[in-house]
């Protein structure tokens, strides 16, 4: 009988149910879309922030004080300490190795450059004291557990713009800075021969494969494969500076706590959270003799903006959910208010207030589940579209969002109909049946 009454109500008042259901579905669609985006946005934006470049810098602990002005180190090659390149694959063995998305070692030397045209003709007399930067462009780092990890400066410094292409590490190739190229009239596919000190034989020249615009001191230098810079500086297998780009969680009050005052449990929690400071510590543990520093300019700005944007989206989500809840609540309230006749009749036929309330609540809940389910699907589709348009990747549908949305739908419809139901339960059947 109960089921028949519910089914009858849906059949007879199809239009109403459809509209209440539509309001529910739309409202819950808003909630789902906003919630999915808000849940996902932190990770997506953190990736986006990596376009600001590396947030960690690794230097030798025993290094002498760099004399760096305008990005150029004025120390002689022999001064200061170096780090072994062979240790670098260890970066992908730290606890948060998946968060290390790119790294690139640097070795800078100053050399004399001798430019040649494409045909092998000497372009100019030699250019003295040119900064030469050795690094990886797109290097395959063999991983300890097998496989390889491709990384390099193209990933750590995404704002470096290359006209032409990056050098390939196997062949004799290089990339020149835009200011250097302009000053010395060097074009792509010319070549350069680099020497340090007095060398009687001109070494094999490097072919220029691209012109680099970085907006920094690299614009006036020559960028070569790390291995070539190592042989030029006579420092085989060594580098001086390592930039690491890692996905991190913005630092909160807990992350700023002094590690020395933490309890063991807190220390574990800190270590197992991808805060920039804990990743820095893990890198330091893997690469002995290094000093790992956070590039605060990048890391702190990122943390602050990320926190604000996430908060903003949560508030938008909350506001959207509130509005959806109010509209849906109003809709279900309306559908109860209009049914006083029916309620009166039911009571006249001997139904108690409880039974009537239960019947109506069951109807509303059924509607909430159906409407909420449709709304969830709608919201997921919208969130997908949004994610794909903006970040090129759709947020994963999560069970959490589904449960929250269905729960919200149920609560809102019940709350919305509770007040009119209470009033309805006090209805005297007689005047209603008389049509008063």
């Amino acid at each position, binding site marked *: 009988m109960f089921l028949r009454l519910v089914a009858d109500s849906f059949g007879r008042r199809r239009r*109403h149910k459809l*509209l209440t259901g*539509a*309001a529910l579905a*739309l409202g819950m669609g*808003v909630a789902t*879309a*906003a919630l999915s985006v808000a849940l996902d*946005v932190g990770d997506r*934006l953190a990736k*986006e*922030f990596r*376009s*600001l*470049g590396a947030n960690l810098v690794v230097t030798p602990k025993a290094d002498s*004080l*760099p*004399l*760096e*002005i305008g*990005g150029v180190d*004025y120390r002689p090659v022999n001064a200061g300490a170096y780090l072994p390149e062979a240790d670098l694959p260890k970066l992908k063995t730290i606890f948060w190795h998946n968060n290390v998305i790119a790294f690139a070692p640097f070795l800078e030397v100053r050399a004399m450059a001798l430019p040649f045209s494409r045909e092998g003709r000497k372009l100019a007399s030699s250019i003295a004291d040119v900064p030469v930067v050795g690094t990886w462009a797109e290097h395959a780092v063999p991983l300890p557990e097998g496989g390889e990890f491709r990384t390099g400066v193209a990933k750590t*410094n995404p*704002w470096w*713009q290359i006209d032409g292409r990056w050098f390939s590490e196997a062949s004799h190739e290089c990339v020149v*800075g835009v*200011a250097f190229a302009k000053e010395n009239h060097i074009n792509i596919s010319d070549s350069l021969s680099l020497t340090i000190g007095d060398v009687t034989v001109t070494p094999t020249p490097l072919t220029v494969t691209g012109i680099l615009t*970085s907006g*920094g*001191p690299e614009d006036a230098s020559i960028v070569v494969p790390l291995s070539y810079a190592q042989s030029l500086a006579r420092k085989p297998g060594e580098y001086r500076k390592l930039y690491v780009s890692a996905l991190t969680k913005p630092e909160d009050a807990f992350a700023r706590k002094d590690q020395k005052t933490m309890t063991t449990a807190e220390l574990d929690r800190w270590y197992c959270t991808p805060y920039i400071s804990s990743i820095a510590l893990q890198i330091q543990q893997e690469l002995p003799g290094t000093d790992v*520093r*956070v*590039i*605060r*300019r990048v890391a*702190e*700005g990122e943390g*602050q*903006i990320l926190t604000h*944007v996430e908060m*903003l*989206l949560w*508030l*938008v989500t909350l*506001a*959207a959910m509130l*509005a*959806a809840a*109010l*509209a849906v609540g*109003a*809709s279900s*309230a309306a559908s109860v*208010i*209009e049914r006083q006749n029916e309620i009166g009749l039911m009571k006249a036929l001997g139904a108690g207030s409880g039974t009537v309330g239960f019947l109506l609540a069951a109807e509303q809940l059924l509607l909430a589940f159906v409407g909420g389910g449709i709304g969830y699907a709608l919201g997921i589709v*919208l969130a997908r579209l*949004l994610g794909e348009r*903006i970040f090129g990747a759709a947020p994963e549908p999560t069970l959490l969002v589904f449960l929250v949305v269905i729960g919200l739908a149920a609560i809102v419809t019940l709350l919305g109909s509770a007040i*009119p139901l209470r*009033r309805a339960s006090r209805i005297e059947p007689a005047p209603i049946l008389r049509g008063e």
Partner: protein
Amino acid sequence: MRAGRDTNRAMFWRILRRLLGANRGRLFVMLLALGAGAAVTAALLNLQVDAKRRLTSEFRVFGPNVVIVPSGALSSSSETLPQSVIDSVSGNVPGGRVTALSALYMVASVSVPGSGKSASAVVAGINPLFLTKGYPSANPNGSLRSSENACVAGVRFAKEVGVEPDTGLVVASGDRQELCRVANLRQTGGPEDNRLEIDLRAAQRLAQLPDRLSMIELIVPGTPAEIQNYIADLQRRIPDAEVRPVRQFTEGQAKIYNRISGLLTATVGIVLVLTALCVMAAMSNVAIERKMDVGLMKAIGGATRRVVRLFLAEAALLGLAGGVIGAALGILLSIVLGKAVFGVAARPRLIVYPVAVGLTILVAILSAFPLRRLASIRPAAVFRGEA
């Protein structure tokens, strides 16, 4: 004729009043739905305009994004700029204030008088020296005091030379020397870690380069396009120097700004459309309950057009009321939200208010449209309880 129309109008309003007052529960429900919609519309629109603007000033935390260097300074850093260049830098842009930082770099020998430790290090004359807000904030160990002989030591420099806050230092270049007292240490992860920053005038005396600068760093707030324009404009005003964006930050910021503002616009758009549809569905649901009213009006001779007009007027009135109340609440809400997120209350934009109210009225009228269907109702059927 005229009197007839007046009676008609009076009757129209009277019926309208009765319609609204007839069922207070229903009135409340309709106002709630419309008001909630209006509040969200107003809050989101206001917040959206404000948040984008706010975001550009948030980028300040990344520090300088534009530099002015002597022309051709890339290949040699010994060239300098006249200090007067800084007068050409305008202080205000649409996005806020431009902060300028002038610097003179040199290599000098720094020693600690007590311990006899000394090292040759990069010494930067910076003006203003203590710029904590907007510049990479470090670990400000020690108090921030601004006086001519105060200096800031980078952490690596401090470790090398053995400097702590409040250590006195002698900075010497050639036969000239300056004294300074370390006010605080800082760690930025950048080249600042390796150097000592002193007052600009002291550095100029040391280097014997009065009124000269190595570079000026600017923090320019604004959208990517505004920053581009600012750079072009500044370059026109100072043709002798080179004005360059710090690509790492300008490009990164442009990318992030576009993403975030796109995200915000899209989210707000979707939320607004769905909310409008949701309110519309809720309202239509109420509207189709009005069969009895329509039937009665038609039975006593109301023309269909008149009846529909009556209900549309009712909807518009409800929309106006819901909109006026809801939008006001929404703007208040956005002020509170803005304060919660950015620490600064969102400035209410007056244009948002009429837009939100207008949209609410529109939604209310649109949702009264199922009533058109009621025009085909046969009154007799309604009264017999058949429809």
